[in-house]
């Protein structure tokens, strides 16, 4: 073959490879991935290297203690989804549900899992604490114990409500969908108000009033939507409900309001994170990775062993990572210390009984053994004027609290309750870096367990 022809072929192949690299998920990319699967045989050649060093495990008492703390945290989180107001709890039944999917293309729809023994139906109301969130839109026929919930933030969502005015009177209105605040600096979420019964409404708490019969309250009646606000700009009157629920950080744990006879006594978890049958053993092809500055691994098993993309990896109940690509006989995983690894977090604070939903934690890598996660604190008030120095928080002045952090709900492949470690939170609004000390150095592991996401939910024993 002539040198010129060989060079042309080489450039052509390089162009195809560049296209496949820069446009992931295309047929070319998938074909190249599968074409090199036989190279996995070479990983077996290198297995003797993985025998260097033993398997790190937690001592049984330490593991039991971690599981106990994690379960307690999840139970408290489940209890926090029930109404605190006794009037809202009376005469109603509550079915617990946990978010397992919140598609980016449809942020107003969440997929939940619940105890399949409970009877749900489309149209049932969904709440969290004293807050109204939305309705059950549909049940997933092929997956018992799964349903789609349409949040009140959805464009088409509407619910009858009433505002309690300062003079004690009540005014009906309709709430649903998101309203844009005239001040772009105000990033809080506002629900749109439709058909207010009076033109002079200004402020007051807004609660659901879906029942038309004043003597017969509906199941959702009385649950909070938020606070009515008004704003005048350019002669226009802006009326909206400032949402009382933080839709950025949730919902993860919620309840479906039902007639009392439909709710079941017992645990609140649809998926028990530590049940052995929910985990499948697997192993890494090597201890470590040749990929520079990455904390990621290749696994020796793939689709042929039932592994699925997005499934969590754990060891002794400690979160190890997540599968990012699954091939026929191998898979790739990013570990918790890999920069960019993101997970929903849930924390038990030392000074507060109710768990704190942290929302999304994004890994920034490690500092020694400690994991560094970027976290946006949206729940605490900001520090006093002058204390908050750009761009983050004045750590020296801010109050701190120790916290036990586990994974939260929000992913089908990653159950809540997997342990991340302990840290110290700064209790002030704004971005901060969490320095989490994990109970186990997952980088030294050779054998791990992978979550079986496709098993149907089962009630907690």
């Amino acid at each position, binding site marked *: 073959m002539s040198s010129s022809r060989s060079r042309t072929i080489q450039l052509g192949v*390089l162009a195809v*490879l560049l296209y496949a*690299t820069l446009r992931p998920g295309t047929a070319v990319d998938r074909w190249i991935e599968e074409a*090199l699967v036989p190279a996995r045989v070479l990983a077996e050649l*290198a297995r003797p290297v993985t025998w260097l060093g033993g398997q790190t495990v937690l001592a049984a008492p330490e593991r039991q203690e971690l599981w106990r703390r994690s379960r307690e945290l999840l139970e408290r989180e489940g209890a926090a989804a029930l109404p605190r107001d006794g009037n809202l709890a009376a005469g109603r039944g509550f079915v617990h549900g946990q978010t397992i999917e919140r598609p980016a293309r449809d942020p107003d729809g969440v997929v939940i899992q619940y105890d399949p023994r409970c009877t749900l139906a489309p149209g049932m109301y969904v709440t969290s604490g004293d807050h109204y969130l939305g309705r059950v839109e549909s049940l997933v026929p092929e997956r018992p114990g799964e349903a789609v919930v349409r949040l009140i933030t959805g464009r088409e969502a509407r619910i009858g409500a009433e505002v309690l005015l300062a003079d004690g009177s009540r005014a009906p209105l309709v709430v649903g969908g998101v309203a844009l605040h005239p001040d772009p600096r105000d990033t809080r979420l506002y629900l749109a108000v439709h058909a207010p019964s009076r033109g002079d409404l200004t402020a007051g708490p807004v609660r659901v009033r879906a029942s038309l019969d004043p003597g017969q309250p509906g199941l959702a009646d009385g649950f909070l939507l938020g606070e009515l606000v008004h704003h005048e700009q350019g002669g226009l009157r802006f009326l909206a409900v400032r949402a009382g629920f933080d839709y950025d950080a949730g919902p993860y744990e919620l309840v479906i309001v039902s007639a009392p006879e439909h709710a079941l006594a017992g645990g609140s978890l649809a998926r028990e994170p530590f049940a052995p049958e929910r985990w499948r053993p697997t192993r890494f092809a090597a201890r470590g*990775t040749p*990929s520079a*500055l*990455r904390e990621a691994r*290749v696994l020796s098993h793939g689709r042929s062993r039932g592994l699925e993309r997005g499934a969590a990896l754990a060891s002794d109940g400690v979160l190890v990572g997540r599968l990012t690509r699954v091939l026929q006989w191998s898979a790739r995983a990013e570990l918790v210390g890999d920069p960019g690894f993101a997970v929903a977090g849930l924390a038990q604070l030392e000074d507060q009984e109710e768990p704190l939903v942290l929302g999304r934690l994004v890994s920034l890598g490690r500092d020694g053994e400690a994991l560094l996660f970027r976290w946006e604190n949206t729940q605490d008030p900001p520090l006093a004027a002058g204390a908050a120095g750009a761009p983050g928080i004045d750590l020296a002045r801010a109050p701190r609290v120790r916290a036990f952090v586990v994974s939260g709900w929000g992913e089908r492949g990653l159950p809540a309750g997997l342990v991340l470690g302990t840290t110290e939170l700064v209790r002030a609004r704004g971005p901060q870096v969490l320095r989490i000390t994990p109970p186990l150095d997952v980088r030294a592991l050779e054998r791990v367990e992978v979550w079986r996401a496709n098993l149907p939910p089962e009630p907690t024993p």
Partner: protein
Amino acid sequence: MKAQRVLAWIVFAAWLTWATALHAWLGQHGTGWLPDLGLVLVFSLLARLEAADAPWLMLATVCARAALAVEGHAALAAGVLGLVPLVLWVRGTFELTAPAWRTLFCGLFVLGFDAWLLVARHVRGEAGESSFAGALLGLVPIALVSALLSLCCGPLFASLPGLTPLRRRTW
């Protein structure tokens, strides 16, 4: 191809896999000052290889790397296919077996390969919110120690048992 050379390529793939696995094992606790043993071995052989044999070297490198590395196979193959011809072209001007040149160009080879994988990861949106510039800076120590390893052990790497049929006799 003679059976002897086929066997030599298989042996090279095995050496490369072990070097890559050893590199992975040494770096399991995450140190930025670890030479890329596999790429130093590839460079050492590349400096002494017949140009016509380059496709075999590329194939062995991609396979060994794909077995243990977490990057997409297309990105690995593109990195190898882009850089190996460049090294061959440089070899036409500089004597890459000479200590100074092999140190310099091995460092650049490792830096170029790792930087390409970093670019690919960011373009594919797999790096989350991590800083590209910070990560790029973090690759420099790896390139430096790889260059030093090439200076000290380049000829040794190229003389590993079983690789004799792949080396030019005149180096």
